[in-house]
Structures are given as C-alpha cells and as structure tokens.
C-alpha cells in the first residue's frame, strides 16, 4: 500500500473539507482506504493538457467553478445541433446531471468556490445529448465529437435499469466506438468511461447493458463510504474498477458543482464514479500522454485493489489477481496509476481470436444445468490472432427462452475462474431470449487463454411455468482478446523497480517541492535509485532508467543488452549479444538457479531441461512423443502421428504400426495377424480367436486350425483327418478318395469317377465300381452296353495298346474288356 503523507493538503475551496473521499487518510475518516488522489497531486499530476468531456444533458459552462477549465472545443449540443451545450433550465432543474458530473472531474482549485476537481487542471467540456430523443444517430454523433482533440469521454447513463431490459449501442454507435478506438487520440484510442447500472434494487444485472459490457468501455461501479455495497449497485463480470459514492441512507453523498452556479452535497449513484475515474485517468494521461486505450485498462487492472471493500465474492483469478462481480479489480488508486503510467511501456498489440461457433442446439431442461465446453488453442496457428495472455473474454450467444429472467449463465476459464455472465432477473418476463448478445468478462485478465472453456446455463424458474416450454441454446461462440506475449513484467503495482542509468551532467535537476501550490507544476521523479558511477565521471549524476529487466546491479545503458545483471533471465552466449529477458524465447528454457536461458534439445520449442526427454512442445515439423517427452520427425513403431496436435500417439497394443488412428493397424505385432485394419492374436494351433470374448477358444478335435468351435469351422484338419464337405473326417466317404493338396498339411477328399465306389490316388483309378458296372482299367463301364463301335477300328486300338485311354474304351468296350 502507498505511503500516506502525514500532513494533508489545503485548498481555499469552501467544500474541500466535505469531500470525504479525498481525506480517507485522516484518522477521523470512515472511509478507511484512500483513492490517493491528493498523493497523485503531490507528485505534480493535476490533469494538465488533458481534455475530458461529459456526455449528458449539458454543462453549465459559465459556472464559476467550471468556467476556468471549460473547453468549447470539447463541447457540442447534439440535441439542438449547435455549439452551445448549456443545459435547458426548468423549475425542476431536470438537466443538472451533466454539470454535476463535470464538477467532479475538473472543478477549479483554489478559486474559493465550491469544490476541487480530481483533475483540476484538465480541460472540461460537455456534449448535450440526453435532453431530447436519444436515437442511434444521436449516440453515434455524440461519441464521435472531435476524437482527435478529446481524450476521455465520460458517460453516466445507459439503458433502463428496470431489471428487464436488454439493450446496448446500435449499429451506428458501435461504429462510432470502433472509430474512436482505432483513430481517436491520433491512433492511441479514445478513452470511454461508463457508469455501471443503478438497477440493484430491481435485481438488474449489468451484463444486459451493451455499453458497460463492451470491451471498448471502462465500466465503473461504486462503494459506500464504509466500503459496503450500495443499494443501487448491479453486479456483473464486465465491471473493471470502483470508486467511492453514495449508497446507504446514513452515509454521506458526493459534493460537486450544481445548476444555477450552486454547489450540492447530494450527487449520488454510479453517475459519480465514471467522472471520478475519468479524472483519475486524466492524471495518468498527464504522466504519460502516449498511453493507449488498452494501456489505461491494464493500468486500472494493475493498480486497483480490494482494500477494505466488503463482499464475499472476492476471488483470485488464474493470474493471481483479486476480482469481484461487484467491484471488478477494486478501488482505484490515483497515485498508483500515475506512478505506473510514468514508466509504462505500451502493451503488445491486441490479438483477437474468434472461436468457431457451436451451432448444436441444446434444450435447457427446467431446474437443470446444461454444460457445453470448447477446447481452444487460442489461434496458436495464426501469429496475428494468437492470444496467450487474456484481456477481455466475450461469449456471443443466441438462445430462446419462455421467461428470460429465469436464466443464469456462467463461463469457466481453463484456469478455473468462474465468471457469472448472467444472473436471474425476477422482473424480466420477456420471451425474446438473446440474439447474438455479447456477454463480456474481465475476470480472466492475465490468465492463459489456451485450454477448455465451459459454458453453464441454468434454468431456475422463479415461479411455476409450463414445463413443455423450455429454453433452447441455439448458438454460442467464444471471442478471446489479449496478447501473444506478456503485457509487462509482473511486479506489483507499488513495487517500482526502475533502475537508473547513471550519466554525468553539470547539475542535478531541481526536484524538491518547496511550497506545494506554486512548485507543484513540475512533476517529481518517482522513487528511483541510481547505480554506481562509471568511468570516473563526476559524482553529480543525471539518471535515465535502465531497462526494466535489469537486475539490482544496474546497467551501462537503457537497453536490455546493457544490464549488469538480470531480474529474470539472460539470453545469449559469449559469441552473441547477451541480454536480459522476462521469459525465455521458444527453443530455450529458463534455468532459475543460473538465471540463464539454456537451449532445449534439437526440435523442442518449449522444454524443462536440456535432455531429449524434457520437451513440452515441438517445433514445426516435429511430433511430440507423449511417453518419452521427446520431439521426433517420425513417430516410432507402435505410435502414429496425430497431424492436428503434432503428437505421437500410441497405436492399439496389438499393432506394430498404425495410421491416423490407434485402431487402424497396418502391421501387427508378433503373435497377431492383420484382419482388415485390426490385429487379432495368432491363436495356438487347435485354437481360434473369439472376437466376442477377445480370447483364444479351442477348435473342434478334428481341426488343426479353425475359425470357430464347431466341426464345420476347420481351416486345417488335424493329423490323419481329411477335409471333406467342410468337415475333417478320418476317412473319405464312399466314392471319394483322399488327395494330397500342395500347401495343405492334410488330404482333401476328392470324388472318384462316375459309377466308381472307391478309387485310389486318383479319381481315374477306380478300384471298385458300383453295382451294374464293370471295372475296365480305372473306369467303370455298364455291363450291358459293353460293345465295339467298329470291329476294324477296335482291332487297331487293341494293336496300338490304346485301351488305357477312356475314349477308346468307350468305342471298343468289348475288345478292351477282353484284352484285360
């Protein structure tokens, strides 16, 4: 926590002492933790050269406390279409809101009038846009007034906080936001600060407000003087930070400039908080005018803190930051933010990773929770979309539901951080559901983006409902915003570690602040310390900051390669330039003891050590072997290469080689045989593979090998059995003879010749004919038909011994019969 200066400041503005939120350091004060605005002033930051405008119902530009800082170039009347933003006066003073908000930001100091603004040297303007029909055109025009001149737009209004509205910026207003972010402030991005909703008592939830739910706006909530939850406060995951405001009937409200050149102590609600943060950001922009719109959000995340704000929903996210749905990252710290802003290095460019849309329709049964997950590598394969460290996370969702207020939606990040995207709203009886509504959370800020995200939707009816009418999730997608590298080093907000470069100079810059008011204009250098002098220069030093990665021994110059030692790791060797780095680049691992980046084994991208088996991920063209933790070009036997994840994954235990899937084998292990793409065990002779029981079963006794247990399932016959009619038989049946078959370990029963009962060795060698047939050579001839076709021809057949030929037997049956 920041040191509190013992002696507080004094201003001649009469209501200064009633500004209780500026004196929380005093002992008598009930607000126990400071927003540290006076401490920032003491460092010289009062908002000089920063331009803030209030989008509201006008600004009393001639109010004595506003006139000194009023800026016509930061003002416009969109309702009246002219350059005079003065509010419309009526008996009810209905249009006081803008003037009250403006006073908080930049009411003049020491002018013996009313209060002191948080950025009391900033330029303040007003855009009158609420006092008439507010349309998309009116909003777009208001958000687009002079983005190159105005730095900060503060808005303390929004859609109705009636607990049943879902509304946000229209098409034109969205484009105006985007234009401001991309082109505003010369490309650094306009700063949009938005007051969170005031519908706490109606059970409203600020994720239904498209303005506070936008990544482009800084959504601010409030806490009471004692750090309690105000009665009006809405909860949601898009709230970034908090300031003091009103909120309990016995606790004090906020004092500020009022209509008709007056002063009020009755300014209330979250309307107070947006201008307060706008003022604090103005101080930061004075400290560092080159802050981008994301730098400002990072600074708020880094410097806001829970302090003594009372709620039981504080939790620590995956990056070690405390966050709550009520207060975001906590109470703002003006001194912390200017100190950090002073030495801030712009965060790396924003990457956006849009996940594929899940269009699988899901019914949401009553009283039950539907969980759907998505596994993401956070666009690792696109270098310009890859998100490693998160900022905002958005769930774009479409669903129908008979009673929208009964829904509760949560998002759980890979680190386990649970953001409540929607809570039940008992007044929301709409049956319109959500159409491409974008729920945003900042609770995962700083976490790693890659991994499994879970969306939980719970339907909890607040009263009886037709059970047939159920909610249906139609479509949802995850949008991750963040950076590919760490946005900054990880020191806590108040542990300033700038190491100073020591350069000789003629004299030390006057940095002492004598009397606060007159000398405070020159910003004081923060708590730096200087390294020992070098090369005999005089003791009088002019210092410039070393690179933030330099260790405590200081440096020879501003670059990371000029450090004398490193906070985290040194990279490079004797031959190359050695420099300090926050994290070791791909292909290296951080040796914590030696504080050095050491090279991983060949092929590894990230690793835990030098050896081949300490690789966590591989370079392009290599596969990560899950068992040996090594990187290989070719997956070894028994593994296959998973192309999407670049892993070597195990094949089925029976496979020697498989392709693309553990079950698609191409080569089986010993003792297995390939059956299609599957390896089935080679069962011992006499057994077969029972695929149902996945074991070897016994063949029938007649089988040597088989495909099943029955007699008809033999592949090869057992010894001394012959294969006949799909069975193995000890002997061939009549009319058949056993014949040797090449390649078979047993004989096969073959049919003898026609009319032959028994033959040997060949079907033509009949040894026993059927009844009524006579064996003639190896053939069987019917008895009554044994005659000669032609006597002379048959004599020739006999003389040429042609009776062995079946053809001649048939023509010369009697001659051949007689010749035996």
């Amino acid at each position, binding site marked *: 926590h920041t040191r509190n200066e013992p002696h507080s400041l004094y201003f001649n503005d009469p209501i200064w002492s009633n500004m209780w939120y500026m004196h929380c350091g005093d002992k008598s004060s009930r607000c126990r933790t400071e927003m540290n605005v006076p401490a920032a002033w003491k460092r010289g930051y009062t908002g000089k050269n920063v331009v803030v405008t209030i989008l509201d119902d006008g600004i009393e530009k001639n109010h004595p406390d506003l006139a000194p800082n009023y800026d016509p170039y930061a003002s416009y009347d969109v309702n009246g279409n002219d350059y005079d933003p003065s509010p419309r006066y009526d008996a009810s003073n209905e249009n006081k809101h803008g003037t009250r908000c403006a006073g908080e930001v930049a009411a003049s100091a020491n002018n013996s009038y009313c209060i002191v603004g948080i950025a009391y040297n900033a330029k303040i303007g007003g855009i009158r846009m*609420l006092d008439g*029909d507010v*349309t998309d*055109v009116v909003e*777009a025009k208001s958000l687009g007034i002079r983005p190159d001149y105005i730095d900060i737009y503060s808005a303390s209004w929004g859609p109705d906080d009636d607990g049943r509205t879902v509304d946000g910026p229209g098409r034109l207003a969205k484009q105006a936001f985007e234009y401001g972010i991309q082109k505003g402030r010369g490309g650094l991005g306009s700063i949009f600060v938005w007051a969170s909703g005031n519908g706490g008592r109606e059970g409203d939830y600020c994720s239904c407000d498209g303005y506070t739910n936008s990544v482009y706006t800084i959504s601010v909530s409030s806490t009471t003087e004692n750090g309690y939850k105000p009665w009006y406060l809405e909860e949601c995951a898009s709230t970034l930070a908090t300031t003091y405001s009103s909120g309990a009937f016995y606790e004090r409200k906020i004092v500020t400039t009022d209509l008709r050149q007056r002063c009020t102590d009755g300014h209330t609600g979250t309307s107070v908080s947006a201008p307060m943060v706008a003022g604090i950001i103005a101080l930061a922009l004075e400290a560092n005018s080159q802050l981008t719109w994301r730098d400002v959000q990072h600074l708020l995340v880094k410097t806001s803190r829970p302090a003594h704000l009372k709620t039981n929903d504080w939790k620590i996210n995956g990056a070690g930051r405390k966050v709550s749905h009520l207060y975001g990252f906590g109470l703002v710290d003006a001194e912390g933010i200017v100190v950090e802003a002073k030495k801030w290095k712009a965060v790396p460019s924003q990457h956006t990773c849009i996940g594929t849309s899940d269009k699988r329709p899901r019914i949401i049964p009553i009283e039950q929770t539907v969980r759907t997950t998505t596994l993401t590598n956070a666009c690792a394969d696109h270098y310009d979309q890859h998100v490693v460290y998160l900022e905002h996370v958005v769930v774009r969702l479409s669903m129908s539901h008979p009673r929208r207020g009964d829904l509760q939606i949560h998002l759980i990040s890979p680190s386990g951080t649970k953001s409540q995207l929607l809570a039940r709203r008992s007044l929301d009886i709409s049956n319109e559901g959500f159409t491409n509504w974008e729920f945003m959370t900042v609770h995962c800020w700083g976490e790693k983006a890659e991994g499994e995200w879970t969306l939980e939707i719970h339907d909890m009816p607040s009263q009886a409902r037709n059970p047939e009418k159920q909610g249906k999730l139609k479509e949802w997608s995850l949008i991750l915003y963040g950076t590919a590298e760490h946005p900054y080093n990880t020191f806590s907000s108040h542990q300033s570690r700038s190491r100073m470069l020591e350069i000789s100079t003629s004299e030390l810059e006057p940095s002492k602040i004598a009397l606060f008011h007159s000398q405070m204009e020159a910003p004081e250098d923060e708590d730096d310390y200087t390294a020992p002098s070098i090369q005999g220069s005089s003791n009088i030093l002019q210092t410039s900051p070393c690179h933030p990665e330099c260790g405590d021994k200081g440096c020879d110059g501003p670059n990371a390669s000029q450090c004398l030692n490193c906070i985290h790791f040194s990279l490079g060797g004797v031959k190359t330039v050695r420099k300090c780095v926050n994290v070791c680049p791909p292909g290296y691992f951080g040796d914590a003891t030696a504080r050095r980046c050491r090279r991983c084994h060949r092929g590894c991208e990230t690793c835990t050590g030098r050896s081949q088996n300490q690789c966590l991920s591989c370079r392009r063209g290599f596969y990560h072997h899950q068992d040996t933790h090594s990187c290989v070009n070719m997956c070894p036997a028994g593994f296959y290469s998973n192309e999407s994840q670049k892993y070597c994954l195990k094949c089925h235990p029976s496979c020697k080689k498989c392709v693309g899937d553990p079950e698609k084998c191409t080569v089986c292990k010993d003792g297995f045989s390939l059956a299609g793409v599957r390896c089935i065990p080679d069962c011992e002779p006499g057994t077969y593979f029972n695929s149902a029981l996945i074991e070897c079963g016994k063949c029938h006794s007649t089988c040597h090998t088989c495909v099943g247990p029955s007699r008809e399932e033999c592949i090869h016959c057992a010894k001394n059995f012959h294969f006949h009619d799909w069975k193995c038989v000890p002997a061939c049946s009549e009319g058949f003879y056993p014949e040797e078959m090449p390649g078979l370990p047993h004989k096969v029963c073959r049919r003898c010749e026609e009319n032959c009962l028994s033959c040997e060795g060949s079907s033509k060698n009949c040894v026993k004919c059927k009844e009524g047939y006579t064996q003639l050579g190896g053939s069987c001839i019917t008895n009554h038909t044994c005659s000669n076709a032609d006597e002379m021809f048959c004599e020739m057949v006999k003389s040429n011994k042609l009776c062995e030929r079946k053809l001649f037997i048939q023509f010369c049956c009697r001659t051949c019969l007689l010749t035996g």
Partner: protein
Amino acid sequence: LPTRALYTNHWAVQVIGGPPEADRLAAAHGYINLGQIGNLENYYHFYHSKTFKRSTFTSRGIHNFLRMDPKVKWLQQQEVKRRVKR
C-alpha cells in the same frame, strides 16, 4: 408489457457516392440531409419534416421509396431509445 418501439422522423442512410449523392437522394425523396453522422463515412442523417415526429408504427409513404434506390446500401428509421441518468 414490453416497451413498444417509438419511431421518429429521422433516418440514418448509408449512401454509395459521397455527399453529392446524399444530397441528390435527399432532395429526390423529400428529405433534408443533415450531413454525415460524426466520423462515419458514407452514413448520413436524413430528416423528413412531413411525416410523424413520433409514432409507434414505422413510417409509410412515398418517401419510403428511398429504400429502393440502388445508391442506398442501408437505411434505418430512427427509434427513440430509453436512456436513464445514473
């Protein structure tokens, strides 16, 4: 009851062809071209004085033929949005 939409006699029009084209279209269909909407290129603010200032129905009449003009890429009759001060 869900709040009913409230339509005005103002339009936002996305025009192909820049300011001269916007002026031509406005004149041709009875509108007044109030100029580009902030920094949004090709978007113009049209106002029609001869239609209902406020209505719960979308506007009817020949001025709606503007929608069919090939130079008009997109067009939206402006609704009053309910906004509250916080």
